[in-house]
């Protein structure tokens, strides 16, 4: 997978676009754009080859030709200087100078059998992703978060003690008896439904539906504006349980009857 920083990729894309536009302008309307030629090049090998050779700008071709000629001349001079071999060799170099073409002495020696698009055999990411190193970018953030939560727990623990009531006594039922806070929603349901419905059916269905959520929700988008229904349903669920837990925790007193915490005090232990 290619990983090119976002800004570099954007810059390169812009430059490419600008170059293409310039070229199209230069070629005029009649000639097809080189990009289109490249993409549709599967059809005709010869055309593709000529397109490929024409992609090298003329002034560069000229420059390389001149450079080669100069090099040949230099070699000749060199050869002359050492008093050595062969203007024939120099001549050979000179004839070899023009860029090689696909055409051999017996006509074409290569032909295009097929064009395999990159994506068909390799998993090539169409758009490169913007990535950062885990160290230091992610690890430092995680470290700070871990330190923060440790400090929070430590300081909270210095000032607030965990409850330890008197020794358990099976013959002395406290009033009210409450489940741990995360089950208080269920205990609240117990006041409204048959125990089997409140204690087993509803939470069981809840877990089951939660597990099935990704298979029920077939909407492929993860954008909030596309999934208003899913978000609404989930939020209603969350609120429903939160309200039940809050009622069970703070608004239920002796006999699990309603009390106002500001009148009767709290009947709640964590």
């Amino acid at each position, binding site marked *: 997978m290619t*990983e090119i920083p*976002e800004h570099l990729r954007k810059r390169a894309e812009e430059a490419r676009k600008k170059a293409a536009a310039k070229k199209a302008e230069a070629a005029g309307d009649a000639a097809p754009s080189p990009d289109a030629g490249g993409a549709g090049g599967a059809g005709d090998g010869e055309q593709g080859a000529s397109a490929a050779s024409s992609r090298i700008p003329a002034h560069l071709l000229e420059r390389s030709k001149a450079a080669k000629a100069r090099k040949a001349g230099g070699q000749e001079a060199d050869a002359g200087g050492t008093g050595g071999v062969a203007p024939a060799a120099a001549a050979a170099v000179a004839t070899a100078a023009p860029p090689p073409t696909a055409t051999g002495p017996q006509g074409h020696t290569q032909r295009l059998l097929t064009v395999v698009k990159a994506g068909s055999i390799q998993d090539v990411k169409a758009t490169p*992703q*913007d*990535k*950062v*190193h*885990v*160290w*230091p*970018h*992610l*690890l430092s*953030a*995680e470290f700070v978060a*871990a330190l923060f*939560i*440790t400090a929070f*727990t*430590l300081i*909270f*623990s*210095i000032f*607030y003690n*965990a*409850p*330890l*009531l008197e*020794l*358990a*006594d*099976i013959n002395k*039922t406290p009033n009210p*008896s*409450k*489940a*741990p*806070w*995360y*089950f208080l929603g269920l*205990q609240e349901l*117990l006041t409204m439904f048959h125990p*089997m419905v*409140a*204690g*087993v059916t509803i939470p069981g269905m809840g*877990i089951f539906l939660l*597990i099935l*959520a*990704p298979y029920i*929700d077939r*909407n492929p*988008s*993860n*954008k909030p504006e596309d*999934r208003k229904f899913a978000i609404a349903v*989930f939020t209603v669920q*969350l609120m429903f349980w939160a309200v039940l837990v809050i009622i069970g925790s703070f608004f239920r007193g002796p006999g699990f009857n309603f009390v106002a915490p500001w009148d009767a005090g709290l009947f709640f*232990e*964590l």
Partner: protein
Amino acid sequence: MAKTMEGKKASDRLAELTDKVQSSQAWNSIFRPGSIFRKGYTDSPRNRSYVIMNSVLYHLHPVKVKRHAVKVSYTLCLGGLSFFLFILLTVTGIFLMFYYRPTAAQAWDDIYTLQTSITFGLLVRNMHRWGAHLMVLSVFLHMARVFYHGAYKPPREFNWVIGVILLTLTLLLSFTGYLLPWDQLALWAVTVGTNMMGYTPVFGDQVRFVLLSGREIGTDTLLRWYVLHVLFVPFVTVIFLAIHFWRVRKDGGISGPL
């Protein structure tokens, strides 16, 4: 003058010693080739990769992640914090295990002694308790975060299922720990909770019997819940955590951006 000479000599000796240690077989058997502890760390893209690649962290993190994935505002660190709280609870829990015997006759006294006459006993117990509540909370919030980002959608459906299992395991861990102090709060909270489970259709009584290790809560229940709390459920949780983290990477890192 003499003093600075001596200081220089000492620093030379230190460098020599460092070289010697770092070229020893023992050192090189501990740190893999390319480890930053072999050849020091200077900030370069290659070394940034090596920090992850040549350390045990490679089990948890890839070398690179999507840029948006490191934004705290996206994940709020909730998954990582849940895992960190799990570690914190393991550490504090092991400390508590040294002073606790799971029998009806001794449990409450052990906790009381821990709080009153053992150094940092009260503090560590508090951290264990509040950390447990925090973990339940952070796992809940992590689930909500994942839902609101639609992060359970293909290819991450199965990891969401694992996540829901981990949520129930977290609740089980917390609930089994609730009984262990063996005070009135523990006894009656667990009585209420297990009574609810006893209403399971068809085999409700059996479920209750297995959970309580008898007809009612007693010293056998305490032993059973202790083993569940310190061994069985953490063991299962660690397995599911491993699958969860592995799938995060296999499914292409964390989801998004929106």
